């Protein structure tokens, strides 16, 4: 039962969702653990960090010895998004997208969203009204990032709900539940991705005819030094940004509120001094990262990791959340400390595939938590641990019911 060969099965078991950390500690004891299905699990900080910077480690599903389906592919024959590609193609596509998201070409797009982000967060909090019971996921953590990513890309407000439904279906398809037939969910997810791709493709066509100042217009119209995204590339890339900008931030905010409510001292300290919030967000990314592991890496050659040879083509799973609690890297790693120094966590990954949207996620989470802390008077968790989503990768509460004293500001 407790053989290291079954660790992945035990980690992905839904019963472990609320607290996978003892299993991660067990994984770190082994450093690298070969699983019964021939995959390799890595849970120590130094090894994970080195692998994330190792050009012999591929993100391309085609590098697997056993065929592997890209869970984010739009349909057969469509290109793969840059998350599932290696350099130089990854670099070209990521650069083409980054050009319209951040520096050096567009240094102010994210910063410029701040005012609007605050307004959206305040509106959502106004919506709490006199309710004494809230679900911080459905009432706040979920709608905020969806609205923001749609605004950034340029999805008209009237279509946000539809995008929301598609994104939900896609994410449901990413979950693996070992003893359930994955086929129906997989098919629904594929259909949602295709529909989302078609929708964004049509929206891009419209932006070519009548450009506006959103990111989709920029992606569709600009001819930079690397050329332009083809129409299929544009569809795949914008679907990736919509989905990635959606689910992970929801979990960061929900895990964040759950963690802060479990640590009332930190909660009060942050409420009194919001300038501590940037450090607290980094600590949350370490302590409860919204992406727990990267399941899609593959060595391109036989490589040695912590004294173990991982054969070319075998599935390599990097457990970021285990590395984030490695006592050889972090002092007192199981302690939640919002003023932690030297917090070089793996919450956004590292290396060439490090999270594209990290600056946006940081800003959204800082604003979200600051708003909630100011508005929640006498909050109490009504269910601890709360009900979790199925996914062991994108881990977070499905609902986060809290009671509060109405009022507050």
């Amino acid at each position, binding site marked *: 039962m407790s053989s290291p060969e079954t660790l992945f099965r035990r980690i992905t078991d839904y019963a472990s969702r609320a607290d996978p950390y003892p299993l991660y500690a067990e994984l770190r004891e082994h450093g690298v653990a070969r699983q019964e299905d021939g995959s390799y699990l890595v849970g120590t900080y130094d090894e994970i960090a080195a692998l994330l910077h190792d050009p012999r480690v591929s993100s391309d599903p085609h590098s697997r010895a056993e065929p592997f389906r890209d869970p984010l592919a739009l349909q057969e024959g469509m290109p793969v998004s840059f998350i599932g590609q290696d350099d130089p193609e990854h670099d070209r596509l990521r650069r083409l997208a980054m050009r319209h998201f951040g*520096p*050096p070409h567009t240094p102010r797009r994210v910063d410029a969203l701040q005012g609007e982000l605050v307004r959206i967060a305040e509106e959502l909090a106004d919506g709490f009204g006199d309710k004494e019971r809230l679900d911080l996921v459905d009432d706040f953590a979920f709608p905020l990032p969806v609205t923001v990513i749609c605004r950034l890309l340029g999805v008209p407000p009237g279509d946000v709900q539809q995008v929301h439904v598609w994104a939900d279906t896609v994410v449901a398809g990413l979950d693996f539940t070992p003893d359930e037939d994955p086929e129906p969910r997989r098919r629904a997810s594929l259909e949602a991705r295709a529909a989302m791709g078609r929708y964004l493709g049509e929206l891009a066509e419209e932006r070519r005819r009548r450009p506006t100042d959103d990111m989709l217009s920029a992606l569709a119209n600009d001819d930079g030094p690397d050329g332009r995204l083809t129409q299929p590339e544009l569809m795949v890339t914008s679907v990736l940004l919509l989905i990635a900008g959606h689910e992970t931030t929801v979990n960061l905010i929900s895990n964040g509120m759950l963690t802060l409510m479990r640590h009332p001292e930190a909660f009060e300290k942050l409420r009194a001094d919001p*300038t501590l919030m940037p450090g607290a967000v980094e600590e949350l990314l370490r302590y409860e990262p919204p992406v727990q592991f990267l399941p899609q890496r593959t060595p391109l050659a036989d490589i040695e990791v912590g004294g173990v040879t991982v054969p070319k083509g075998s599935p390599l799973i990097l457990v970021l959340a285990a590395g984030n609690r490695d006592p050889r890297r972090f002092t007192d790693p199981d302690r939640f400390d919002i003023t932690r120094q030297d917090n*070089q966590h793996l919450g956004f990954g590292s290396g060439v595939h*490090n999270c594209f949207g*990290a*600056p946006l996620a940081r800003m959204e989470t800082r604003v979200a938590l600051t708003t909630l802390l100011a508005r929640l008077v006498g909050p109490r968790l009504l269910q601890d641990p709360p009900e979790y989503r199925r996914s062991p990768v994108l881990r977070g509460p499905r609902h986060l019911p809290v009671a509060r004293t109405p009022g507050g500001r």
Partner: protein
Amino acid sequence: MHVVVDLNRCQGYAQCVFLAPEVFELHGEEALMYSPEVPEDQREKVLRAVAACPVQAVFAGEQAGAGAG
């Protein structure tokens, strides 16, 4: 307030440029430029950049140069 970036540590993640575009600037893909003297109205943004740097290469303080060696 002063800011110093340890350019030996910097790996070009550019989180500081996102968070405080008035203080940090990218020239080309990787060359980071910044103004060491932080205007009062940029203080908070610079402190956010310090917290967000994935390799902890940004230092700020009244005497940032002193502690950044």
